[in-house]
């Protein structure tokens, strides 16, 4: 479970470029929930995810992950509880390292690293099985350099790496946005499959309202650094993009002008 309470964060404080990214953001994600997050550009989606991961420190507010206050902890100290897949398919893996080396890095996420060999024979069955589930033939290419893989393949491996060890929450930051439509739907399918199979708690930021309603079991919309609405269960069933827009306009008295949000 993860609880964010009244998060505030302003970039460039005291400068002409002052930009309040989070203005009292509060959200609780319960165990086993798969929450999709939408919002237009500048709504604070990525900042919120970065704040949860520890890449940026909030000015005020509190972040609790599995009953531990992590507000002041740097990224690497949260990594044992917080798993992550980035938007950039190249960001989640090391291209100079082999597939098995990347997976071996991920299997020790948040744990002490010693001087024993990083790539261990006893990992191999698990690596091969999980790679085989991707149906990309990567289980036979464990010794290949990551850089030889395509963006989609690398994103699929990033997803595997994030789910190799248990975590309190899996953060997905528009992780299909940089892929071509076919690969994007493959990675999205894989995401829902992994989250379902392993009963993961996940927070997925997306730019597409359609996607946000199609996957997961709860949808949260951010606007100007706050949660503007939060729907789940019966209210969310059968909801379409236009309903979502109406909901938004009713709540805010605003019209959505971000084309990409409507078209996505």
């Amino acid at each position, binding site marked *: 479970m993860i609880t964010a309470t009244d998060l505030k964060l302003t970039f460039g404080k005291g400068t002409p470029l002052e930009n309040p990214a989070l203005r009292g953001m509060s959200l609780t994600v319960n165990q086993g929930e798969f929450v999709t997050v939408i919002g237009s550009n500048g709504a604070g989606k990525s900042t919120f995810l970065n704040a949860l*991961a520890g*890449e940026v420190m909030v000015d005020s507010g509190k972040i609790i992950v599995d009953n531990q206050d992590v507000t002041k902890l*740097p*990224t*690497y*100290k949260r*990594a*044992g509880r917080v*798993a*992550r897949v*980035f938007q950039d398919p190249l*960001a*989640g*893996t*090391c*291209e*100079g*390292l082999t597939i098995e*080396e990347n997976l*071996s*890095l*991920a299997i*020790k*996420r*948040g*744990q002490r*690293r*010693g*001087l*024993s*060999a*990083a*790539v261990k024979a006893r990992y191999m069955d698990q690596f091969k099985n999980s790679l085989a589930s991707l149906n990309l033939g990567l289980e036979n290419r464990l010794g290949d350099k990551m850089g030889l893989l395509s963006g989609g393949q690398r994103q699929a491996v990033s997803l595997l*790496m994030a789910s190799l060890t248990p975590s309190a929450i899996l953060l997905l930051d528009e992780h299909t946005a940089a892929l071509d439509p076919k690969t994007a739907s493959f990675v999205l399918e894989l995401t829902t499959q992994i989250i379902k199979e392993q009963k993961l708690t996940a927070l997925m930021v997306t730019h597409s309202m359609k996607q946000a309603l199609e996957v997961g079991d709860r949808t949260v919309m951010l606007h100007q650094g706050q949660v503007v609405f939060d729907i789940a269960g019966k209210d969310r069933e059968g909801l379409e993009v236009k309903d979502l827009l109406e909901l938004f306009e009713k709540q805010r008295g605003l019209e959505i002008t971000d084309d990409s949000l409507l078209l996505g």
Partner: protein
Amino acid sequence: MLSNIAFYGAIETGLIYGLVAFGIYISFRVLDFPDLTVDGSFPLGAAVAAVLIIEGVNPWLATGAAVIAGMGAGAVTALLNVKLNILNLLASILTMIALYSVNLRIMGRPNIALLTEETVLTPWYNLDLEYHQVPVVLFTLVVLAGLVLLWRFMKSETGLAMRATGANPRMARAQGIATGAMIVLGVALSNGLVGLAGALFAQSQGAADVTMGVGVIVIGLASLIGGEAVLTPSSVVRALIACVIGAIIYRLAIALALNADFLGLQAQDLNLITAVLVTLAIVLPGVRTSVAARFTRNKA
């Protein structure tokens, strides 16, 4: 051509610079941390070892102390970068400059002669070997030991974390790697190796001198880049072997250049030759591909 002595001399210094190249491989290649501290940590290693040896300390202990001193210097550079957010290159220049004073303080004078002292090499002269082969044999063993240890380390969990830190720090942090600590450890390790090289160099050359560090970074880089041009560093072990090969080729090339009478080069031309060789080593692989591309295009 080269005399026997010049040949073994080139191999001997080549092996020592192989250790420097190991260090530069860790900072420049593994961590992507351009570190000029080595110009200071090389004479630091020499100074520490020399002072302890003339005090009567066991030469191997003195050499060990030089390694620790080098690691300390590297740690200072890394901490300036990690904790105080000083640009890595600038942090290393600051440490390098500071070390000049530190080295003078340690030695108490600009140079210390070791010609009559017992060094790590002394017992080896009792072996049935030619005089100028002795350092080559001992340093080969040291370099091999260093290569194997470094290779094992780079394949370990911590070593892999260090490689990830240099290649993709954001990903490394997300995997729970304390990237700052990895940089400190890596740069310390790198300068420890350079300190070792300095200590061995002083003992084989018979003196420690405060100016002996000038240009060590360039020689180390020349070895690294030259080695990579000869042996593609597709794996850690190949990259490490390339370091040694590059360093030996570099020293042989220098020895040849200085011994080729028709070129008319003299010892003072060393740094100029080095700069030219490094430039060639950087440019040539690119020229080779573009020439090859031109030929294939013409054929088509």
